[in-house]
């Protein structure tokens, strides 16, 4: 798909311009197709990562496909030059909303238009289970262990934790690593 472009580096906007001129000739079409392939190689991994954090796992690839099809279909009308990446993620965000499968509608940010499917925030089963299992396993730790884990995952250093909880720094370190092993084993057991 990327074969017909000379091996020079094009920035996104240059590639976008090639695509915008696709209807001029067969040659232009082939260049546009190659440019689209290059943009895909450049952006697909992060676009997939973006979707993975926002839609259900079983929807990620379908929405990803729909984004690229929409990008192609909306050219050159939809993209009038400028920042291609911004345009791409705008499409991605809108498609994720349109499909009504956002895991956390409230994550869209304060300035976003209203999501028509916004009901109760819908975590995926996968992540719901993960969260529930972790909470349950955390309850099984001793109070010091649980407090150290909470503090560490809130970004506190061992020194800060030790001072706050009245522990030796070494002890705080040991408690965390001990709890880490227990939590990992417990979650593994709960989720199979």
């Amino acid at each position, binding site marked *: 798909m990327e074969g017909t472009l000379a091996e020079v580096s094009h920035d996104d906007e240059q590639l976008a311009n090639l695509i915008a001129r696709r209807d001029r000739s067969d040659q232009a079409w082939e260049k546009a197709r190659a440019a689209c*392939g290059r943009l895909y190689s450049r952006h697909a*991994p992060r676009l*997939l990562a973006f979707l993975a954090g926002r839609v*259900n796992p079983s929807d990620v690839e379908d929405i990803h496909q*729909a984004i690229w099809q929409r990008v192609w279909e909306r050219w050159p009308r939809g993209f009038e030059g400028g920042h291609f990446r911004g345009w791409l993620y705008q499409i991605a965000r809108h498609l994720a909303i349109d499909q009504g499968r956002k895991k956390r509608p409230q994550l869209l940010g304060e300035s976003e238009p209203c999501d028509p499917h916004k009901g109760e925030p819908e975590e995926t089963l996968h992540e719901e289970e993960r969260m529930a299992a972790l909470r349950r396993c*955390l309850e099984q730790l001793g109070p010091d262990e649980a407090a150290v884990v909470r503090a560490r995952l809130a970004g506190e250093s061992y020194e800060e934790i030790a001072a706050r909880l009245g522990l030796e720094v070494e002890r705080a370190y040991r408690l965390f690593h001990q709890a880490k092993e227990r*939590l990992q084993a417990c979650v593994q057991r709960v989720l199979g």
Partner: protein
Amino acid sequence: MKLLALDIPDNPAELPSWLERELVGFRLGELVAELSAVSGGTGQRPSLREVLGGRLQATLDRGLGELPAETLKHLLLWPHLLLDLQERVFNEGGSYWERLGPASGPPAEAVERGRNRLETFLGAEKWLREPLPRVLALRRAARYFGPALVGLATAAAVLFMVSLSQHHGERPPTHVPSLDTAWGWNKPDAFSANAAAGPYLKTLADEAKEWFNKRPEDSIALARRLTEFRQGCAMLILSDHQPLSPADRQWLVNRCRLWARNVDRHLNALEAGVDWRQVRTDADETVEKLIEALRQRALAVEGKAVRAELAPLA
């Protein structure tokens, strides 16, 4: 299943680079879920702008190393802000972020599958723009729009029957497909009004699975089978799905529009001369994914129902 959050580095100096790699990685959603379960903040969630203040642009240019330890703590305490930040980074992040290797990438097969689908799509698009003599062009257009017309004709027929029955105060009759096409969502009893939401979605998944009951062995048979499947999509889009909540109904219809579009693409590819075996493989993949999506939704719906039942006991 490995817990990601517990890999938080012991040395605070390494926290920014660890978080950066997770931020551009494929499993950020999982990390956010874990952090939320363990240490999520309470009260009104602040915005990214409130937390980063005037440092947002510097962060987009040069990474999290620009942020004081207290700000990083806020991000961990309000982990959903990490998703907001990820979006800003993917949108506007400078070359610093582009060079950064992710902690976890998407599966290589997913990237490859997407590339193949895009190639098939572009192949069909190219075919559609080829100049043709007028008559041939019309014939091709008829073939191209065939699946859409099938859907529209089905929709029109269903609407007509619905309006007719409403006029006579009767329940809308289901369509009466021929025996050959009465499979999957085309069956007269495909959409039961009496099931609970979870089983209803599972039944839809089982009905979709009937796609695999017959394996077309040439392009014409495959085109026919795809057209029938597409017709079933139209039925699904136009039915009222009484057992489902409005949100689930909306999800199903939106979802089905996407599936219908994919089926149209497979037909286009077939008509564009793509090998029927390849198209059948692609179509199989579409159907497998839609079955999986329906089953996942059914599980989520059932889980929600169980939680609602248990809530008063908690």
